[in-house]
């Protein structure tokens, strides 16, 4: 290769002055319009909520160790606990956590200096802390007891003021999500560098684009549903009360029209992360790149046509089969991704880094979650396991085995870029082993107790299920413990980790073609993307990567070339 296009500047003196400095920790506590600061703010706050939601999960498992009530004073107390667990994990952990990686990585991958609307970006983040306070405050007044899905009449007649606060908080989070997503779409469509067509864009950007399209189209329905719920609770309307001419199924229709697509909001970015991590850590191009990008769009589109499968038992019978068919169709784009990932690592030079291990963990666990999803799409089976632990198992396989494993993969993969330090790989592997087996033994047995007939959302159960629940409980505590390993690893590596350098994984996407951490403007000069973001294994790619290494030797831009 004669011409190697990397962001190599000519201002040598300029670079020397520009030392690689990490932002002071206090900058993360302040208002900032820098997408990298905002990304970390999103990441740290949602991880804190992960710990809160995880502690609640531990409480749930502690209660379920014995068939009777022991930790909880009543079934109502248990109801409010799992309601908070679901709400915190979905609205305050997974959705904002993807905004964290999206914010930090997407502008860098596009070679942009920031998001399209930096101020809006900061505003969207700063809506989250007040929303979280409002929701969590609800737990300490008369708590919501209706589950994260807040079905009336549970959420209208049988929940206290906590449910009102829940709805207000969720409203704010929805607005934050819409603003963040508008920002992502505009950034991705308008701010790509010259030479990066949509079909040369990294797959994380494709996934974030698809996710954001879902979020802007679906989240307004949540806003509508929450408005009605608030009016029913405080203004005396009866939209959900049949006695006043309302319809309880109205909530389910509108809520699931948002919340089923929201499932893909929670997992699609993880799928994008997987394409990145699997390709980079097995040194092979993504198999079927275009189909992966298109399948993200396919999932986004079909995701709007399946919501009523959450209502199989309450739906008009003639609508069941159509929704069963659309639900099964959505397995097709997901399957395309699955085969692409397998094709990507097939015959690759796999490096079992922690990021790669978690990506492989996603691959194996998400396949189980996907298959149980197809099982649940089948009407006769769904009616059999309706509201049992089988359903709990299914959605934890896709949300923990899927989203959380991908979040960990993303953390190990991009931590060096964010902080300039490598994470400890040995601790990472230990963390993976504990998480993987803790997860498997927590959630796989739930399939079995579910099929045996244990209902979900109960604090008191048939003593015949005691041993299963004790196995699940112990595995859950192992899983809970494993979280502390990664917390320690992050803190330890932030201060003591080895210096990462610009491109520790030798990756071709643009976020690695700048210093770690990147300067405020991300790139000193306008970066020129490599022609194929995943074109590993060619001489040209090696030359490009060598040039990047040469440019940013010792983690700082070389003073001269």
């Amino acid at each position, binding site marked *: 290769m004669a011409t190697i296009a990397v962001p190599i500047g000519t201002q040598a003196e300029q670079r020397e002055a520009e030392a690689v400095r*990490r932002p002071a920790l206090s900058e993360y506590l302040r208002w900032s319009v*820098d997408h990298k600061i905002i990304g970390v703010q999103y990441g740290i706050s949602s991880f804190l909520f992960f710990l809160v939601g995880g502690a609640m999960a531990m409480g749930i498992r502690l209660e379920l160790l014995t068939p009777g009530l022991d930790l909880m004073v009543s079934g109502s107390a248990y109801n409010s606990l799992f309601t908070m667990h679901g709400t915190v994990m979905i609205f305050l952990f997974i959705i904002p956590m993807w905004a964290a990686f999206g914010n930090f990585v997407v502008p860098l991958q596009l070679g942009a200096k920031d998001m399209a609307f930096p101020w809006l970006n900061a505003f969207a983040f700063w809506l989250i802390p007040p929303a979280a306070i409002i929701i969590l405050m609800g737990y300490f007044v008369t708590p919501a007891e209706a589950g994260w899905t807040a079905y009336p009449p549970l959420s209208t007649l049988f929940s206290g003021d906590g449910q009102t606060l829940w709805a207000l908080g969720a409203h704010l989070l929805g607005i934050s999500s819409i603003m963040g997503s508008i920002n992502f779409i505009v950034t991705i469509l308008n701010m790509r560098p010259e030479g990066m067509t949509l079909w040369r864009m990294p797959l994380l950007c494709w996934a974030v684009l698809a996710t954001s399209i879902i979020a802007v189209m679906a989240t*307004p329905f949540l806003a509508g549903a929450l408005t009605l719920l608030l009016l029913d609770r405080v203004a005396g309307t009866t939209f959900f009360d049949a006695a006043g001419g309302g319809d309880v199924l109205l909530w389910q229709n509108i809520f699931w029209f948002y919340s089923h697509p929201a499932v893909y909001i929670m997992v699609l970015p993880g799928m994008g992360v997987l394409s990145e991590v699997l390709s980079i850590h097995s040194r092979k191009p993504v198999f079927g790149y275009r189909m992966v990008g298109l399948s993200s769009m396919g999932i986004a589109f079909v995701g709007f046509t399946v919501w009523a499968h959450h209502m199989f038992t309450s739906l008009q019978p003639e609508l069941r089969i159509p929704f069963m068919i659309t639900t099964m169709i959505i397995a097709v784009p997901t399957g395309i991704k699955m085969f692409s990932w397998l094709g990507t690592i097939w015959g690759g030079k796999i490096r079992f880094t922690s990021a790669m291990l978690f990506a492989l963990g996603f691959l194996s666990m998400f396949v189980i979650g996907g298959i149980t999803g197809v099982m649940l799409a089948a009407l006769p089976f769904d009616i059999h396991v309706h509201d049992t632990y089988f359903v709990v198992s299914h959605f934890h396989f896709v949300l923990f085995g899927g989203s959380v494993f991908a979040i960990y993969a993303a953390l190990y993969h991009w931590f060096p870029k964010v902080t300039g330090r490598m994470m400890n790989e040995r601790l990472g592997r230990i963390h993976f082993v504990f998480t993987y087996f803790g997860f498997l033994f927590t959630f796989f047995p739930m399939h079995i107790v579910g099929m045996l007939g244990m209902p979900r959302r109960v604090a008191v159960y048939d003593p015949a299920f005691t041993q299963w629940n004790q196995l699940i409980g112990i595995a859950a505590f192992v899983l809970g413990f494993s979280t502390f390993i990664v917390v320690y690893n992050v803190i330890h590596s932030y201060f003591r980790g080895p210096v990462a350098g610009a491109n520790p994984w030798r990756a071709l996407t643009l976020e690695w073609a700048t210093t770690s951490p990147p*300067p405020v403007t991300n790139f000193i000069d306008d970066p020129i993307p490599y022609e194929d973001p995943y074109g590993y294994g060619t001489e040209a790619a090696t030359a490009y990567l060598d040039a990047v290494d040469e440019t940013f030797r010792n983690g700082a831009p070389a003073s001269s070339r």
Partner: protein
Amino acid sequence: MSNGISHGQKAKPRDQQSAALRLKNNRLGMNIFQVSWIMVFFALIVVNWQLRFSYAQWPPVGVTPFEPLLPSLATLALLGSSFFAQRGLAAFRSAEIKDFALCWRLTMTLGIVFMALIAREFAMVSAAALATQYGVTMRLMTGFHIVHALVIVGIMLAVYRRAGAGAYRGGEAAGWAVEGAAKLWHFVTVAWMLFYLVLYWLR
């Protein structure tokens, strides 16, 4: 070169966007916002539609249907105001500030006429209708719409005053606030047309 900004200094990345890119971003962002937020109005239409089926007939027995005359006049006023908003924007772009101010005043006046007429409808819903979802969903939809109209008229007023004071001059990018306000007003019109059809004509 003056781009050596370290973390200690306050960088304003937004200022680094060229005017052309900023305008392009604003336009796309506004379009996405409009497509997104119209979905809330669709959600309320779904509410109206699903609640119809709780009743044997619509409007329910013993409830007189809403009279469409005044709402139709209000709709005409709103369509007219949207027309003048567009005219005002065109006048602003060709730097005819007087024409712009006239059109913008007409827009706001017609908008206020619209809101007054709809507010009257809101207030005059009969007790019989309010005892059913027929009246309640009507209040939900018109109330929700008027809140939006009110906020956006407020935005238009702010733009009007600042434009009168000489702001937003010097090219399309600088005049974005005028364009954005006009687009928001069109959004109010489109959202109302949907509600108007559902509330007064689809029975």
